[in-house]
């Protein structure tokens, strides 16, 4: 199995894993079924986009037979729709429908980040080594992820000084992260 195929397979497995993780156990409240369907659609669409990324499109699309034209339209749709973004929103939506379970949610967050990184590697054809400069930032992100999970655990432990401190740290971390990202959002 070649490296691009391995990375594509990893992206597909991570996407499927995220959907299963967020969906289990199945809930039937609200629009859970719709969210599950959208999550599956998003992951499948993203994987198909990665698989068919190398299929060439003819320069001349004039007077093509109908099946070929339909195939080209399918490819165009596949390449235009932001499948992964849709899948991420649907998975987060699925997860929030469950009652609070901080550590599984943190695990889902780590899996989602891994899914997005694997998808990026697969679509750009880059080796995993290009992510080496991001290792420190990802480590800090993992710490914040754990902090967020810890903050989520606190209501179960009951109100107290420690609970308030951890909530404060989590809030500050979020505010700092949001403050850092705002200029970038403005530029984008």
């Amino acid at each position, binding site marked *: 199995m070649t490296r691009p195929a391995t990375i594509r397979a990893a992206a597909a497995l991570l996407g499927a894993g995220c959907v299963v993780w967020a969906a289990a156990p199945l809930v039937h409240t609200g629009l859970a079924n719709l969210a599950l369907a959208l999550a599956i659609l998003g992951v499948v669409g993203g994987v198909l986009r990665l698989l068919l990324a190398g299929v060439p499109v003819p320069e001349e699309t004039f007077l093509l037979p109908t099946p070929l034209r339909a195939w080209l339209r399918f490819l165009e749709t596949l390449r235009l729709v932001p499948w992964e973004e849709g899948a991420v*929103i649907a998975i987060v*939506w699925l997860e929030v429908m469950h009652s609070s379970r901080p550590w599984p949610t943190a695990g889902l967050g780590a899996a989602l980040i891994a899914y*997005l990184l694997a998808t990026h590697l697969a679509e750009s054809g880059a080796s995993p080594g290009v992510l080496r400069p*991001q290792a420190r930032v990802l480590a800090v992100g993992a710490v914040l992820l754990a902090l967020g*999970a810890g903050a*989520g655990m606190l209501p179960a432990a009951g109100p107290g000084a420690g609970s308030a401190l951890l909530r404060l740290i989590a809030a500050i971390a979020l505010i700092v*992260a949001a403050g850092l*990202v705002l200029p970038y*959002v403005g530029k984008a």
Partner: protein
Amino acid sequence: MSFPSGPNGTGLDAPEFGFSLRWRSSRHARRLLTLGLAALFVATVARRPEFAGIAAPALLLLAAGRSQRRPPRVTLRVRPSARRAFEGELVAIDLEIDGQGDDSVQWTLHPGREIDPVGATAADGPQVRFTFSPRRWGRRQIGTLDVVLRDRWRLAEGHLTVDLPALDCYPAPAQQRTQVVLTRLPNRLGEHAARTFGEGIEFSGVREYVPGDRQRSINWPASTRRGRLQVNTFTAERSQDVVLLVDSTSDVGEPGSSALDLALRGAAAGARAYLDARDRVGVITYHWGSVGWLVPGLGRRQVYRIIDAMLASERGAAGPSGSAYGTSMRRLPRAALPPGALVVVFSPLLDQRFIETLRDMRERGFTMLVVDVLNADPPVRPRSADRMARRIWRMEQEAIRFSLRELGVPVVHWDGVQSLDLPLARYTRRPLVTGASRGSWGSRR
């Protein structure tokens, strides 16, 4: 964006050019932003801090990549390994980028029409090489090049699309080793054995010694038998003028093996074969009644001049010798069509005016040989009328060829696959008789 063309139109003489980049956030950045905002929104609305934790890594990555410096311009160097290539020949193009800093570079080659990539069409790194081969003759755009620069956080992408320079693709010459030689050759030193005596190396006969003969040419066995000194005689070695007449009026058949493809390949093969035999070779390109020409010349470079002239005529431009394209056949200068020249015609014989031109040339005393390059039939539907029409068409074609043979113009058929030596074998084994028209039609006209 494209490379400014140099005088030769390839951009080879201008090694590097600066290009502006269009930077935008990558799909990866948009996905991270989606995850961060969605998780923050859920954390705020549902009051569940663990979702804020999900947002944290994504937002941190985006914040870290925010201060990355992005180069606004880069310099590209493009070096094709050749400006000209024959059909099917491998050509490489070396690409190098400068000014990209720490950013990674990804190259994607989108080959142009009639360009076959050999190997990968995508590569990474500041220096890459793509290999390709042109499929069919003509001036071919190598293609377009997509260059994508990614910063070290993979959050922003700089895009650049460049049109690569054009490549002149020559028709691949067919195989031809033998030459058709005329009986009457001009008095010019060459490699063909003439019918007259001379200082060549081909033995011609024995005659009696006369004072002034070279002593080394004495044939001692013959002298001993006859009792008088006998000397060997040799044939003179002469060259001839050959004019390749290419009919580019009708391009019928499958692209790649059409009548024009075969005509150009056959003419290129003829040019190479006759120039190898030290003949002077020129070309006349006929196109809907008007002609372009290149006067006969010698040497290896003449092959390329001839092919350039044929391709220039095909584009409707002036030939390399400055020949005025659009002149009629009757106004051709004497230098372009020398008297006594062998005229080798490559044509599908579909244009009636061209056939009349051939008859006219024959009546003016030119020795001609027609290579018929028609290998396609008109398409027919399964109807009796269509089949009948095709039969009539075939009979007309046979009649045209018969009439030319009657005029003393040999017509051979070439399928473009086999060597040209095979159809020409009848005429390469012995000299082609030079002379005025000897056909009944010609004499009546």
